[in-house]
């Protein structure tokens, strides 16, 4: 199933590459995860099922390695000087696996896996995700230090700069490099259909973050200005207005671009009237004046005091509504009236939301070993012709040794 059906990937278990392997597996590739005997250290990353640490109960592991098969091989002694490839049987098994594979995915110190594999088979695509690429250093990094060095952290945080800048949550630095790795592997696969040849794909985590900062990079590149972080909105060279309001139930809403058209002012005014709250909204009269305006361009507000007041009343109207409505009701109500905005959900609330459920995003995965069916976040992409997504739980240590290593 999936557009990559028939593609075989050998993934050498590593924190840097795990999510790339997961994406390829969800797209239908047969991803064989290679761990050391006894299991990869990532199996000890929490949180754990029922908070009981155990190599088969790591939720980090479950998420990153669903849809894959798993084998164990002893590839130890990563010392290029003493490596004897004729001797250890497991290294030969790795070469055999690679010879049958379309893609080898790894995140080891540059050169080591190349030495293990020997001459790259002509059709093989070898992709490596490392902190600074194959020609760079291989220092110790975490998602936090990658995002700090690569630019994203500078742009994220609060208006108050005595507070530290913030790392965007969820290990997105590692995942950004993995996204680029998957794009690149697919490019190499499409090219191979033309040329018959594979190639080496070098992915730099530091470079991946550097080109995933939007204004941060190109405001400096093109204009020589530096963006400054702000609470819950874009970092910009000069301060901008707030875009988050807190609603009746405590949830926050991103208000997006403020209302600027007569149609939007009227929709807000009518909504406030329908709720019977017109008398309580101080700026209701000003808001009504906005019904007749065509469009208020933000740039010359200073030149037109009336339009500036109307524009302000539009923003106030949303803040006023937030005092009486839950985040969900304000979000849906504004969107249904043609105004772009977004409720700020916590991750678990996404899984409970009617829209995501209606599209089948929450996905059930069998954990027959625990006698449980677990809800996972579903597929990133909806291939109408070749449905795909997470389809099996992460492998136990060495679970598929027999079927894979004996030629299965």
């Amino acid at each position, binding site marked *: 199933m999936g557009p990559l059906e028939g593609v075989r990937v050998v993934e050498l278990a590593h924190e840097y590459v795990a999510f790339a392997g997961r994406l390829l597996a969800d797209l239908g590739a047969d991803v064989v995860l290679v761990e050391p005997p006894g299991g990869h250290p990532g199996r000890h990353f929490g949180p754990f099922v029922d908070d009981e640490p155990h190599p088969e109960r790591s939720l980090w592991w479950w998420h990153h390695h669903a849809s894959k098969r798993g084998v164990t091989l002893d590839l130890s002694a990563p010392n290029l000087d003493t490596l004897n490839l004729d001797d250890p049987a497991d290294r030969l098994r790795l070469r055999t696996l690679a010879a049958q594979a379309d893609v080898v995915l790894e995140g080891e110190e540059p050169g080591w896996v190349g030495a293990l594999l020997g001459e790259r088979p002509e059709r093989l695509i070898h992709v490596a995700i490392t902190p600074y690429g194959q020609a760079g250093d291989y220092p110790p990094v975490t998602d936090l230090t990658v995002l700090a060095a690569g630019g994203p952290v500078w742009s994220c945080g609060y208006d108050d700069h005595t507070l530290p800048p913030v790392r965007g949550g*969820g290990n997105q630095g590692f995942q950004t490099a993995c996204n680029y790795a998957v794009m690149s592997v697919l490019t190499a696969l499409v090219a191979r259909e033309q040329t018959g040849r594979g190639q080496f794909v070098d992915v730099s985590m530091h470079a991946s973050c550097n080109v995933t900062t939007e204004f941060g990079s190109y405001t400096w590149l093109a204009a020589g200005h530096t963006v400054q972080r702000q609470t819950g909105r874009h970092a910009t060279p000069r301060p901008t207005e707030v875009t988050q309001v807190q609603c009746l139930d405590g949830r926050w809403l991103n208000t997006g671009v403020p209302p600027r058209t007569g149609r939007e002012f009227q929709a807000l005014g009518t909504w406030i009237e329908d709720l019977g709250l017109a008398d309580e909204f101080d700026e209701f009269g000003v808001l009504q004046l906005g019904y007749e305006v065509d469009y208020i361009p933000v740039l010359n507000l200073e030149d037109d005091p009336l339009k500036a007041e109307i524009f302000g009343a539009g923003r106030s109207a949303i803040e006023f509504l937030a005092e009486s409505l839950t985040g969900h009701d304000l979000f849906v109500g504004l969107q249904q009236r043609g105004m772009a905005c977004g409720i700020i959900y916590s991750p678990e609330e996404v899984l409970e939301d009617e829209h995501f459920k209606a599209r089948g995003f929450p996905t059930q995965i069998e954990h027959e070993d625990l006698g449980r069916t677990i809800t996972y976040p579903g597929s990133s992409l909806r291939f109408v012709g070749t449905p795909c997504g997470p389809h099996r739980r992460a492998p136990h240590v060495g679970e598929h040794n027999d079927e894979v290593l004996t030629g299965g």
Partner: protein
Amino acid sequence: MGGALSHVRICDFTGQLAGAGATKFLAAFGAQVIRIEDPVNKGRWDILRGAPPFKDSRRGVEFGAGFNNHNVEKLGITLNLRTARAKELLAELVKVSDVVSENFASGVLERMGFGYDRLRELRSDIIYVSNCGFGQTGPYGPFKSWGPIAQAVSGLTFQSGLPDLPPAGWGYSYMDHTGGYYMAIAILAALYHRARTGEGQWVDVSCSEAGAALNGPAMLDYTVNGRPLRREGMPNSNRSQSPAMAPHGIYATASEEPGVDGLGKTDNWIAISCRSDDEWAVLADQINQDWARDQRFSMLSGRLGAEDELDRRMQEWTSGHNRWKLAESLRAVGVPAAAVARPAERIDQDRTTSEWGLWPTVIHRDMGDVRVDGLPVHLSETDWSIERGAPCLGEHNDIVFKDVLGLSAGEIEDLRAEGVI
């Protein structure tokens, strides 16, 4: 060897970053990306065309630096799809294209008469990739969106911040970048599938779903353990819960002389992580103060149990140090550490990005030389190339209508005169 994708032609309606970023990647690898814009509103559907930042004092639809950044190496044509003739020309273009890509609100292309069924009539193996905030189906399908909204609804904004404060979120459109990455993955995977089977298909990309799928461990902690991320003390994304690490934070460092960007007197920070008790022991030696040798801190459980105190003491220590020198000394002994880099520092003073070729200079017809984001990957046989700036409005009308659709110079002149292009 030619470009990796030089055999691929894309009929491209994308804009902003969430769509344009996808076809930028493909164009850099040699795909012929033909960007279609509306001559009547001067391509302003893509608001970045005329939006800041600007390279110099010139303004207008040819001078938005963001638009240039996201549309390098593409061709640009104009079609006034209010006219029957333009629709005929679009149909001809679809027939000779491998992919049709767009990131309008859901249903817009269908209303223009070019929904998936129509595209398939024109070319049976066409690949159609649509990308919008909430996907083409479901109750929120018609809702408007862009990066910050997809980030908010997907859970990404919430989990970025410090306790007892509003969400800090992302200070840029992370999900416009990343939505573009997933759109590129969709196009490429569909191209591979078509090469193997001859079958085209439609891929319905929802930015908020792609974003939600980036929150795996937090979601599983809820579905498995019933533990929501909306709880006391959370989120706290400068710390690390999965895997658990401590210390793990961003700490203030000493004042500096102004850099080339004029900054540095304040707002200097260093990120430090300890992945194990062994790394903590090494770090404690570097700190070389009594508190760091406290037995309470020797085990992860002890450090996690006193994380507020640990972070306070860490910052007392780092605040006397220069962030670059401290990061270098910690990395040298194996402790993950990095200065929080400002744009000027990572672009103009970082050997690793310049040697990678990460900031290519392109030539734009009207703007001249401009530096842009390159790609963070290198392919050994068919690597990317970024040299040409974004197309000006209708810049490649003559080339595309002549070479791709076989029109004569006279016919193209007539299209101009009739307001079709």
